[in-house]
């Protein structure tokens, strides 16, 4: 199980058999969300460098496309890769300064973008997918790639925090979204919205949300594809950040926290999605 220690600029690797945690990558410049493509290539959202990068097996790393219609996009936060290998990523604004001279302004929108590889020319390009988001954060895909789930998460006072489902249309655009869930507020403040999520083998959405300072507290919730809350668990740590299924049977749920911890729920009753092909002998120069 790989997970990001974002502010430390590292990706760590937990090995279930031994329980050991080792350093998988260092100098990652605030890489946040990680995902494997169907053929096994690892990609990450390098927030401080405003790009999605590929971590090759030989230890090198290379950028994908970073321009949307000629402009540098914002700071990618989280990603999901579909069966065709297209990378859907959230591109919110960030209060944190990106690396280097501040000569490239942020986009005037914060959207979900999609990276597509022209495999013949070996060139990535970026397409804008959402036109109605202001704080996209977590992204996930239904197992059949027919629905994109987006968490709009602005935890500032009266910010919008909701889980949305966008139908992916045959013409490669998104249809109007359905709001599956909205997060409230009480006298202690906003209920923290979804920071990270994934889908299980049945297409349910497993989401990390909440915090101790308001509402029902830190939660891991399971939503049906239609938005019904079918499970909700208060977790014994503050601010769960992201989650993924793991272990040999994909029957354990791993959860990262804002405090830098990695938790595991064994035999959680759900199962992760199996990548369509095993990790291939992808060559890297």
């Amino acid at each position, binding site marked *: 199980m790989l997970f990001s220690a974002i502010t430390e600029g590292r990706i760590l690797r937990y090995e279930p058999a031994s329980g050991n945690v080792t350093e998988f990558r260092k100098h990652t410049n605030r890489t946040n969300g990680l995902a494997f493509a169907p053929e096994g290539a690892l990609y990450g959202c390098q927030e401080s460098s405003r790009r999605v990068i590929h971590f090759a097996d030989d230890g090198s790393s290379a950028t994908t496309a970073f321009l949307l219609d000629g402009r540098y996009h914002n700071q990618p936060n989280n990603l999901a890769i579909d069966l065709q290998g297209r990378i859907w990523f959230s591109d919110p604004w960030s209060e944190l300064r990106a690396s280097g001279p501040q*000569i490239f302004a942020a986009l005037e929108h914060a959207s979900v973008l999609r990276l597509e590889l022209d495999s013949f020319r070996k060139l990535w390009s970026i397409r804008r997918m959402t036109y109605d988001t202001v704080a996209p954060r977590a992204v996930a895909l239904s197992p059949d790639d027919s629905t994109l789930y987006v968490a709009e998460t602005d935890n500032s006072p009266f910010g919008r925090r909701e889980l949305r489902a966008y139908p992916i249309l045959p013409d490669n655009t998104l249809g109007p979204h359905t709001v599956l869930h909205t997060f409230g507020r009480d006298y202690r403040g906003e209920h923290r919205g979804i920071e990270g999520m994934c889908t299980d083998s049945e297409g349910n959405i497993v989401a990390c949300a909440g915090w101790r300072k308001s509402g029902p507290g830190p939660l891991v919730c399971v939503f049906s594809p239609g938005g019904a809350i079918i499970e909700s668990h208060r977790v014994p740590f503050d601010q769960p950040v992201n989650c993924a299924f793991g272990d040999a049977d994909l029957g354990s749920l791993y959860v990262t926290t804002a405090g830098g911890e990695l938790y595991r729920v064994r035999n959680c009753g759900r199962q992760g999605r199996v990548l369509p092909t095993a990790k291939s002998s992808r060559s890297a120069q």
Partner: protein
Amino acid sequence: MLELDRVTPAFARLVSADAPLDRIYHGLSFGEGPLWNRRDGTFLWVDIVGDTIHRWKPGVGAEVFIRPSNKANGLTFDKEGRLCVAGWASRSVWRVEPDGSVTTLASHYQGKRINSPNDIVVRSDGSIYFTDSPGALYNVGMAAEDLQQYLDFQGVFRISPDGARLDAVIADTVYPNGLAFTPDESVLYVNDTRLGEIRAYDMRPDGSCGPKRLFHKLAGSEPGIADGMKVDREGNVYCTGPGGIHVIGSDGELLGRIRIPDHCTNMAWGDPDWRSLYITTYSSVFRTRVNVPGVPVW
């Protein structure tokens, strides 16, 4: 006319307010690497983001010299007059031979790829010193092909005169950037962008560097950072910083500032008397005149 901030009376002897500030080029994405060529009377500089080395001849004009440049950054000449390049995105130091071919002088240290060479200077014994900040691995718009940082330090390297050895002479900087020797080459100044300071390192006979001394801490609230740095023949240090170019005496005290109307990235001495200061900014190249000539480039 120059806009000056005088901090001490000594500043007036170095820089005059009635000196011109001529903009000789504009339209760059990120100007850097200024270098005067005493052999043919031309001035070179780079546009890192624009991936070009430009050349300009007084009275004639500008042309593209090398493009693409693999995002070249700092430039200098060796003692034979060959152009030596701090190869930012190539992650190497490379040299242009008389026949136009390119030779790589440094790319790996102890088997690991170096970060991204930033600025470069040649000492009188022919050794080459360069700063190895990691900007091309992280900075937006300046990406190298391989973005992985392999070294666990960001330091200063020395290439031996025969080119056979690459030594890390400084390893305690965070983001080393500009570097320059005192006129007698007994001290190497290195600035650190992240720390906003200039350090002095005493040179040892074997070309290695002694322990760091804090030479000067940059101050000011205006935009601008420690980036390019050069030394004049009296040992005064010219360093980019908030508001423009900070002129610092050899004792480490700020003498004054030359205000530059754009974000200043580097400067170079030039013209036959070495009394012109060519200044690169994000978008432009400026030229002004000073009263004390600079340390010449080979």
